[in-house]
C-alpha cells in the first residue's frame, strides 16, 4: 500500500455522552464505525480500505473507563487504556497474566491510548486483507494468503476455513484463560458472553472476528475470582520486542495442590482466527504433577491436528514449546 501523508477522508464525527446515545447512532447509521483508542482504526482510514461516513467516538463516555471491584472479581471498562491495566496493583497481584499481556502490546504510546476493548475486538492483521484486497473476509471470493506463492508466515495453523488469518490480540488469550465474561450492550439490553464464545472463526462468520454485530458495543469485561491469585503464565514471542503482534502467545492459569495440578486453563493466540482454548490439554493436565514430562506431553497434545501453511511451519514447535514452558513454570514456582 502506498503511504499517503495527507488527511484521512472526510467523515462525520459523533461523540455521544452515554452508551444509549452511542447505540442510537449505530442503529441510525448503517455504516457507522465505532472508535475507541483508534489505533486499529486509523490505518484502515488512511489506506482508504474502509471509508465510513459516520464515526462514533466512545471517548466521551466516562462510565466505560476504569477498573472496579465487583462481587468477588473485577470489572474492567472496555475503554480502559492498556497501560492502566498494566500498572494496576490489584490486577498485577490477582491476575498477573492479564497485566503482562497488556504490557506486551505494541509500545508505551499505543498502550496509553489503546483500550482493552479495542485490543479484544481488533481486526486481523493479515496484510492482504488490511491492504484492501478483495479477499473472502472482505466480501470477495479468494484467499490471497493461501496460494502456492502467498507470504503466510504469520497466518494460522488451526481453524482455517477459506480464511487463514489469525486473531492478533495479546489480551484475548489471557481473558479466555481467566474465564472472563464479555458484557455486550445493545438497544434491547445487556448480555454476558463467555470470552471463549465471544470470538468466532471464519466457519461461523468470515467477515467478523467476534459475536458483535455492528449494532452492539462491548462495554465491559468481567473477570471472576476463579483464578484470582492462582499461578499464571503469559509469554509472547514476536520478531521485535516492541510494536510487533505475536507470532504465538500463550496464557495459562493453574490451580495447584502441592505439586498436583487440580485445574488448569491454557489458551494460545495467533495460531487460529480466534484465541484458542486447549481443552484437551487442560483435561490431560488435571491430576498430574507439574513437571517436565507433563509439560512435554501437554505441548505435543497442543499441536495435534495443526495444519501449517507453506511458510508458518515454525509455529508448531513454537506453540508446543510455549505450552510446555507454561506447564514447566507451574513446577518451578510451587505455591
Amino acid at each position, binding site marked *: 500500500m502506498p*503511504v499517503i*501523508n*495527507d*488527511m*484521512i*477522508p*472526510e*467523515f*462525520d*464525527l*459523533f*461523540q455521544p455522552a452515554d452508551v444509549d446515545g452511542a447505540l442510537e447512532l449505530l442503529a441510525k447509521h448503517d455504516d457507522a464505525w465505532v*472508535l475507541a483508542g*483508534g*489505533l486499529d482504526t*486509523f*490505518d484502515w*482510514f*488512511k489506506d482508504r480500505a474502509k471509508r465510513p461516513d*459516520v*464515526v462514533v*467516538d466512545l*471517548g466521551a463516555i466516562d462510565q466505560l473507563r476504569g477498573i472496579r471491584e465487583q462481587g468477588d472479581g473485577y470489572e474492567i471498562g472496555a475503554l480502559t487504556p492498556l*497501560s492502566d491495566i498494566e500498572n494496576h496493583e490489584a490486577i498485577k497481584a490477582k491476575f498477573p497474566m492479564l497485566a503482562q499481556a497488556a504490557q506486551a502490546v*505494541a*509500545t*508505551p*504510546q*499505543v498502550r*496509553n*491510548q489503546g483500550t482493552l476493548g479495542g485490543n479484544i475486538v481488533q481486526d486481523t492483521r493479515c496484510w492482504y486483507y488490511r491492504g484492501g484486497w478483495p479477499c473472502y473476509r472482505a466480501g470477495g471470493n479468494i484467499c490471497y494468503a493461501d496460494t502456492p506463492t502467498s507470504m503466510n508466515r504469520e497466518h494460522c495453523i488451526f481453524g482455517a476455513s477459506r480464511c487463514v488469518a489469525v486473531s492478533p490480540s495479546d489480551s484475548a488469550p489471557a481473558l479466555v484463560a481467566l474465564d472472563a465474561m464479555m458484557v455486550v450492550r445493545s438497544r434491547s439490553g445487556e448480555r454476558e458472553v463467555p470470552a471463549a464464545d465471544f470470538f468466532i472463526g471464519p466457519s461461523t462468520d468470515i467477515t467478523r472476528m467476534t459475536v458483535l454485530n455492528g449494532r452492539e458495543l462491548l462495554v465491559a469485561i468481567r473477570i471472576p475470582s476463579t483464578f484470582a491469585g492462582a499461578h499464571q503464565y503469559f509469554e509472547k514471542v514476536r520478531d521485535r*520486542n*516492541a*510494536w510487533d503482534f505475536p507470532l504465538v502467545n500463550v496464557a495459562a492459569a493453574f490451580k495447584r495442590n502441592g505439586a498436583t495440578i487440580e485445574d488448569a486453563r491454557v489458551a494460545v493466540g495467533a495460531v487460529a482466527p480466534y484465541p484458542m482454548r486447549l481443552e484437551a490439554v487442560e483435561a490431560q493436565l488435571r491430576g498430574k504433577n507439574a513437571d517436565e514430562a507433563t509439560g512435554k506431553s501437554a505441548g505435543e497434545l497442543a499441536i495435534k491436528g495443526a495444519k501449517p501453511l507453506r511458510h508458518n511451519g515454525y509455529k508448531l514447535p513454537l506453540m508446543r514449546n510455549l505450552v510446555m514452558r507454561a506447564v514447566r513454570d507451574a513446577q518451578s514456582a510451587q505455591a
Partner: protein
Amino acid sequence: MDEPTTSVSRRNFIKGVIAGGATASASGYLFRQNGVLAQRSAPGSVERLVTLNVNGQNRPVDIAHEETLAMTLRYKLGLTGTKLGCDRAECGACTVLVDGRTHYACSILTHMVRGREIKTVEGLEGPNGELHPVQQAVMDEAGFQCAFCAPGFIMSMVALVEDKPGFTRDEAAHALSGHICRCGDYNKILNSAMRAGEIARST
C-alpha cells in the same frame, strides 16, 4: 499620464495573487478532501470550532472531524517541533504528552483530546528560556545525530523523568521502546535519559 502608478499597483496586485494562490494550493494539498472552509456537518456531530490547551495556552482553532493532532499542531498552530515520520504510529517522531502521558499525535484525532492538556516539545523550556532537564541532558550527552526523532524521544523522556524519577537504564529502554532512531543512536539516547534523571533529581 498615470501609467507608472497603475503599473506598480498592477504588479503588487499580481504579487498578491501569486502569494495567495501559493497558500491556497499548499493548504489544498493538505486538506484536499475537505474543502476545509465548507465541510458538511451532520446535525448532532461535534462542533468544529474548539479551544485547545496546548503548552499552557488556550488556542482557538477550526478542526476538521478527521484531522489528526499532528496535523493541527504542525499546520494550524505552527508547532512544527512535532515531527511526522511514518504517520502510522510506527516510529514515534510525533510523540506528544496528553495529560502527561505519551501519545502518537499522528494517530489520534484532535477532537479526541479536546479539553485535555497537550504538551509539545515547544512547551518544555521555562518562562525565562531555561532548558528542561531532558533538553539539557540531550545537549550535554550529544544524544542525537540527525535528531529528526529527537522531539518524540524527548517527550517520552519527559514523561519518564516525571513518572519514575529513580528509573534504571532498562526501565528507560522500555519507556523509550515506542521510538525508532534510524541513525542508530540508541546508546547515546539512553545516556541522555540517564543524565536527564540525574539532573532532575539534583534540582
